[in-house]
Every structure is written in structure tokens, then in C-alpha cells.
């Protein structure tokens, strides 16, 4: 069932926007890379370029294999992912108190990033298949499906990915499952449960996670300590002004006042260098991507395709909003990378594979009927 048509103009637009965002990301990473790299080490931006090349392969592969075929193996894939998530707790590498990564030689692999994509596949498959409208089928069962992955990720701990996980689940339940009446009841029920759930979540958080959330409310209380990231990030963004400072004069990022400039805070680096106008361009690129993705979802030929595209849209959208929100100080700092821009192997490859899946959905919509 391999589709052999050459890409149409819609697909070109889609690919160009994605490549544009990737390129801006590489430039930002380049600007915060040290001017001299120790011998034998590859500079970060070059590594990121390698990741993008690998991502392109994943992107093409995700187009090539029919999503129906993928969906048929969804539960198996999810099972494998859960095993990986369990394994990483046992033999993963621990960095800054979190055990999230597999280290294979120089390569570092983060299974929780992949898990998000697999969760989308599983939930799409489930909602597409389910025939009854019962409460249990629409909420409880998918909840039980999501829970093991969520718990394993919380155990690492990886608050950011856990939140993405939850968000994907919630959007897919809302879009794919609940009727309007049930939706209202659900919201009511959740808000009633929230205080108890909060207590539970709060007590399970690590100290540094609590601190991050507390500092969010007032980063200026301890500018040298907990609030440092939040404050420096806002200084970086704000000092960019209308037109930005350019690559060389962006002192916040170049002189490392802004920590993690290549990963979670890459947006602040970009905003300092390119200013308000530059960020608007970036936002327009993301907005176009959201439009095109929802277009694909809307025109999908079956519920599976629609749900798959919806899941991907919600995943990318959530990461975008939370990441940008936290760098601008309107959201607590949780470790969520900016899709397509932050440095990182797994996140880059996964995001590109997700885009490939979107095109996959788009391409299959005309090919066959059953």
C-alpha cells in the first residue's frame, strides 16, 4: 500500500514550514554554542543537524508505512514502550536527580518522548474501534490504558512529559469520546476532585519540582536561587525589545546568564536575538503548522486518521504553549522542550516522525475505500 505519488503543493508548504522552524532552532543553538569546542567533540549545532537528518529518515518512514498498519500493532508497540519505560528506571542514566535516559555510547535516548507518540497511536486505535458509548468505554478504559505509562514517567520523575501525557489523554477523550452532557459532568467532577488530586500530586513531587512551581508565583523572591531561570529568561526575552539584539549582542544567552539556552530555553534565546518581530514570524510559522495539521485531521478519511492527527496536534500544541509560557513567566518551569527547536535527539526525531504521521494521514485519505 505504499503511496508513490509525488508530494503536492500542500505537502510542500507543510514541509517548508517545518524546515523553517527547524532552521531557526539550529541558528539559536549555534548562537549559544561555545566559540571553541574541545578537541574531539562535535559542536551542539552540528549534532542537532545530525539529529535532523536522522529525523528526516524517521519522517519519511512515518509517511511510508500506512498508519492502519501501524495502528494494527499499536498495543504491541505500547507494550514494548512500557517495558522500555520500566527498564529506564532500572538501568537508565541519572542526571540531576531524574532517571530518564538510556545511554548507548555517545547516544542518549529518552523513551518517554517516544511514549507520547505511541500513546497517541494506542488511544486513536482504541477510540476508532470502540462501538459503545458507555461511560466506562469512553473514559475508564482509555484511562486505564494511559495510567501505566503515566505512572512510569512520573516515577522517573519527568513532570513535563507526564503533563503532556495527561494532556494528550484529555484531548483525545474530549475529541474522540464524550458527549456534550458527559463533558459537562466530567469537568464538574474533575474540578471537585481537584483539591484531593492536588494533595496527592503535590506530595509525590520532588522538592525541586515544588520549588519550581512555588517560584513561578514570584521569581523575584530569590533571584540568585530558585527564581534564577525564570527571571533570567524573562530578562532575555524582554531585553530583546521590538527588533532584537542580533546574534552577537544577545548578552543574556551568549554570556550564559540564561541557563539551558540550547534546550528548554531556546525560545528565550531566539526572542532576545530576534525581538518581537522575529518571534511573531516564528508564531506565524507555528500557527500555519497548527492550521495545516488541523486541516489534515479534518479531512482524514476515517476516525482513526482524524484521532491520530488530533493527538499529534494536541501534543505539539501543548509543548509549544507550555514551553513558551514558562520562558515568559506565565507557567511554572517544567522540563518541556520546544518542538522542532530545542536541542535534543529523541525530541527532534520524535517530533519529525509525528509530522511524518500527519502527512501519512493526509496521503491515505484518497487512496482506498473499504
Amino acid at each position, binding site marked *: 500500500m505504499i503511496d508513490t505519488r509525488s508530494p503536492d503543493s500542500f505537502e510542500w508548504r507543510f514541509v517548508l514550514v517545518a524546515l523553517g522552524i527547524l532552521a531557526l532552532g539550529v541558528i539559536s543553538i549555534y548562537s549559544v554554542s561555545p566559540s571553541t569546542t574541545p578537541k574531539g567533540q562535535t559542536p551542539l549545532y552540528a549534532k542537532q543537524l545530525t539529529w535532523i537528518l536522522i529525523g528526516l529518515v524517521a519522517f519519511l518512514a512515518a509517511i511510508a508505512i500506512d498508519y492502519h498498519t501501524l495502528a494494527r500493532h499499536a498495543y504491541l508497540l505500547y507494550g514494548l514502550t512500557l517495558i522500555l519505560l520500566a527498564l529506564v528506571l532500572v538501568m537508565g542514566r541519572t542526571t540531576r536527580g531524574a532517571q530518564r535516559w538510556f545511554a548507548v555510547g555517545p547516544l542518549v535516548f529518552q523513551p518517554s518522548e517516544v511514549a507520547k507518540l505511541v500513546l497517541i497511536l494506542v488511544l486513536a486505535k482504541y477510540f476508532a474501534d470502540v462501538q459503545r458509548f458507555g461511560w466506562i468505554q469512553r473514559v475508564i478504559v482509555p484511562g486505564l490504558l494511559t495510567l501505566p505509562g503515566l505512572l512510569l514517567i512520573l516515577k522517573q520523575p519527568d513532570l513535563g512529559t507526564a503533563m503532556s501525557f495527561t494532556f494528550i489523554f484529555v484531548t483525545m477523550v474530549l475529541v474522540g469520546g464524550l458527549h456534550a452532557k458527559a463533558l459537562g459532568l466530567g469537568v464538574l467532577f474533575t474540578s471537585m476532585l481537584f483539591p484531593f488530586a492536588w494533595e496527592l500530586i503535590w506530595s509525590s513531587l520532588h522538592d525541586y519540582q515544588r520549588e519550581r512551581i512555588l517560584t513561578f508565583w514570584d521569581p523575584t523572591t530569590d533571584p*540568585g536561587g530558585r527564581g534564577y531561570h525564570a527571571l533570567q529568561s524573562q530578562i532575555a526575552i524582554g531585553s530583546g525589545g521590538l527588533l532584537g539584539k542580533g546574534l552577537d549582542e544577545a548578552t543574556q544567552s551568549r554570556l550564559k546568564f540564561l541557563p539551558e539556552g540550547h534546550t528548554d530555553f531556546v525560545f528565550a534565546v531566539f526572542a532576545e536575538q530576534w525581538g*518581537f518581530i522575529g518571534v511573531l514570524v516564528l508564531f506565524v510559522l507555528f500557527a500555519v503548522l497548527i492550521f495545516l495539521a488541523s486541516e489534515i485531521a479534518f479531512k482524514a478519511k476515517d476516525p482513526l486518521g482524524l484521532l491520530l492527527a488530533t493527538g499529534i*496536534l494536541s501534543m505539539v500544541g501543548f509543548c509549544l504553549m507550555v514551553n513558551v509560557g514558562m520562558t515568559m513567566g506565565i507557567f511554572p518551569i517544567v522540563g518541556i522542550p520546544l518542538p522542532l527547536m530545542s536541542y535534543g535527539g529523541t525530541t527532534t526525531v520524535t517530533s519529525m516522525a509525528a509530522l511524518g504521521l500527519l502527512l501519512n494521514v493526509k496521503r491515505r485519505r484518497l487512496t482506498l475505500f473499504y
Partner: protein
Amino acid sequence: MSKFTTQHEDFRNLQRRLLYLRTGLLFCLLLLSARLWYLQVVKGTYYHELAEQNRVRTVDLKPARGLIFDRHGELLANNVPSFNLYLTVEDIRDRDGMAAALEELIGLPRAETMKRLIQQAKSYVPILLKSGLTLREAALLEGHRLELTGLRVQAESQRNYVHGPLGSHLLGYVGEVSPEQQEEPDFAGLVQGSIIGKAGVEKTYDRMLRGKPGEKTIEVDARGNELKTVAVVEQTPGDDLYLSLDLRLQRLAESLLGAESGAIVALDPRNGDVLVMASSPAYDPNVLSRGLTPALWEQIASDTSHPLTNRALQGQYPPGSTFKIMVASAALESDKWSADTKVRCTGAFSSGRHVFKDWKRGGHGVMDLYNALVQSCDVYFYNVGQRLGIDTIAETARLFGLGQPTGIDLPSERVGVVPSIEWKQRVRKEPWYPGETISTAIGQGYITVTPLQMAVAIGAVSNGGTLHRPRLVRAVRERATGRVQEYPSVDRGPVPLQEGTFHLLQDALREVVLHGTGGRARSRSISIAGKTGTAQTVAARVTQLSTDEEAIPKQFRDHAWFVAYAPAEEPQIAVAVLVENTGHGGTYAAPIAKALIEEYWKDSDVDDRHQIAGQF
């Protein structure tokens, strides 16, 4: 059919909800844009300012202090490189860890570091934590630089007194400007940690010696590492001082005092130049300038021998018999007494129920004024005092500059006391008793003077009545222009006495050394004139009966005075010597004055050739 319809409707449902998601996401993007507008456009300038504060640090460039030379161009004070440890509070990541590391590496007490950290209000201004690090300490700290963010070892110039304690009281010492001083107009514009003079000429001439600080603006990274220089305003070194002091004589004077407490002042009676100003015990200004630990300060402040006191101008002592010069002048100027008035000295003098004794048991026999001065006959002056009254004596004493500041260019000069009826009423709230006039006539009782005042006074006797303001700094050389500005000698006006009075005094003082109480000051090489004095300490009256000086406890022994000038015919040097708690002035002070004057005389020809202009 129903199933298909349901599925179809269901699919429409899905699509509708999808659009909600899309709208929601785009709305969020709009909210983020609004926040972005607020941060970058509304508050852009504010955040830009904050980013600049992050990036830029200013480093004060401390100017080198001016040099200090003696009258022959001998170097007295200069600057040497020193490693100083600075700390920028803002750049510290881990305060406790740093304090612990400093204790381990250079032995700086943890509590003290923490105290300094808390005191510092402006977190981006570096504070001086320790100065004068050893090379080893500096290297250790540099080695741990990466862990100890916010610390910087800076090579700076440190004040150095080439001859250690020599002349410490008149040179003074330096130290950091205190927060209170920064409020004063004299120190306006000085940054924290600036070095200023704290005593001596370092203090009086601080404005010239200080120089002007510069400022270097540097760019730093998040760790506080200096990356590049943005702007530099160069510092201007301070101006150099040329003192009237003679280093060679000063050294001799201090060695003559040795372990005894006391002071020696030598002036040039022709212009008021201060040739010698020694005060013992002395201190090492190098130690004080290096930044005192509280413990060291406590030790110096509680030292009962008061090494920080400049006895030459802060020590107030009864003048003893040296005061007879003033009393004799008062007598000669008065119509109640004349040079020929004779008194029989029997060794004692009665006034009311009190009996005042002469220092010589059995008395001096019949005395006139001249001989009474030469022999320092107490009974003669008891009579003079009783006849003239305290106010006449006080008036004449003031003519010689006693009871007033000499106006020397050094801080914290004391003026002593010239008692009068009015003074006692005002200060003590008691009437004057006639018996007090009797003891004042021989320089005992309430009257006190400083060695510097006595040196100025004997200078006026030697030069026929000109009071000079003592001059310590002869010239200042401006660093910026190289221009030398000379300070003129200042004449405080004549002592309005008759010429004959001075002649009699001069003759008598010469005779004191030749055949009187000052015999130990007689020199073969130069004609010296002088007057001995033996000032009783307050407690000494208890032990007055003991004649054996060695048996009296040290702190109850008399202060030995000798005031002198030479050569008698054409005076060039006037000297006041005071040695605390030793005994007779003729025994303990006169030989010191003689040694000093002989040394001066030995090289006086050379001295004249050293014209000041030739030194620059």
C-alpha cells in the same frame, strides 16, 4: 442504516470538536503574543537595563598614593604590589560553601566572612575581604577559582613605609574609608574601599596624596569571568610630599628615646621647619595600613603605653622648671619686679600654712633673676609668682603660644592648659587659691604644655621673639603637571616683649648649659643654650620625701624636660625633649638634646647645600 448514520454523525462530531482544539490552540498563541508584547515592547527598556546590569561590571582602578620624602629626598613612604581578595556578593552561588572554603584555604574565619556578606548592601559592588595575601594564598585561591564564583584576587598597590615605625606618628597610616566618612564632604565621591589617610600627614594631606580613582568597565559572563574591557577611565596618581623632616636626625632621636616613653621635637627657629618629631613608643604603620583585624585593634587600643598617641603634640605635661622662662619674662616685663630684685633662698618658702620646698636642700643663698634661672632656684620663682599673680603669668605664657594650638599641619593637636582665675572659675567652678600660683610659678599644678609648644616657644626665645607655625610639609609636587608648589613658612607674629628681656633670657640659658643645671648638654663642638625641667607627676607628691630616684616606682618618677637651641649666637635648631617617668631633666633629657644638636651640627653645611629646588 442507523449504524452508518451514527458513525457518520459521530465523525461530524469529531470534526467539530477538532475545530475547538484548533481554535483553543490559536487563542493560546494569541495570549502568548500579548505577553510577548508586554515583555518586549512595554517593558523592553526595563529588561534591557537588567540585562546590561548582568553583563557589565565596573572595577575601580585605585590610584597609587603620592610618595613622601624627607628634606633630603630620602624616601619615607611608597607603594608596593599586594594581592587583595575581593568578593562580589551577587556572583556567589553558595555562601556557606564559600565561607567554609575560605577558612580552609586562607584561614579567614567563617563568621567574619558571613558578617561582611551581610553588611554589604549593594550586591554588585566588590568588597575587600582580605588584603596582603601571600603568594601561596593567592595561588591557592586562583586554583579554586571555578568553584569560588564571585571571588577575585587583584594585584593592587599597598602603602609601604620604607623605614617601618620610624616617624610613624607624623607620617600616620592609611586605611579604608568608613561608611560614615563617605557621607562627609571631604570624602565625597570616594567609592567604597578607597584608601584614605587615617593619621599624620597621610590624613592632613590626604586630598593631595589620594589621587583620583579611575574606573574600568568590563563585560562578564554568568560566572563573573572577565571577558573584555568596555571602557576605561585611567586613574591619576596622588601628589608627592616633600617634608621638612630630617630622616637621619629622626632616626637618632628615636634611638635616643629608646624604650622610654617620651617625645622629641626639633624645629628650625628661622622658619618653623620640623626637623624631628619623635614620639615613643611608636607603632608600625605598615601593620595598621594593611587592614586591622578586630583582635589587633583591641590589642593596640588597650596598650597602656598608648603607642598611637603622638606625644609631641598630644601629650600634655606640666612644663616644670622650663616654665621659669615664661615666668622670668613676665617678671622682667612687670613693674613689680626687675632683673636685680634679690631673694634669699633658704630651701623653703611659706605661704599660709603651706611650705613649698626648693629642689635643693639648704637653698641657693641670695639670688637675682639671672642666677635664679641658671640655678633653677624654686624659691626665687615662688616669690616672683606670689608678687605677680597668676593672671600676669598666664598672659605672658600665652604670648609664647602656650595654651593655644601651634597650627602644625597634623591632625588632633592638643593645646594644654594655661590656668588663670577666670579659667578655674569656668572649668573647675572653684575660686583660685594663692598657693596654686606658687606651684604654677615653677611649672607645676594645673599648667600643662605639649613638647611641640615648648619647642616653638624656645624657638621664639632663640630668634628674639618670632613665633613660627611649625611646618612639616615644605612642598608638594603635582603628579599631573610635575609642578612643585612650595609651602611658605608662616610667621604667627612677634612675642611682644622688650629686646632686653630676650637678651637676658638668652644669656641665662647659655649659662644654664655652661655652669648651671644643664651641664650635661654642654658640647665641645657647638654652643648650646637650654633650660632643664623636672615635672612632677601628680602621684609623685606622695613619695616626695624619698631622695633615691631608683627606689621610686617607675610610674611615680618625674618627667624629664630639656628645651634648648643652638648655636647660641645664631640659632638654627630649637629642641624640646621630654622623657616620661625618669627623673631630673638635667640628667635624663639634657644629654639627649646635646646628642641630637651635635649630630645636626656635624652636617649642617651639607644641609644648606641641599636646596629644595635641587631635589626635583
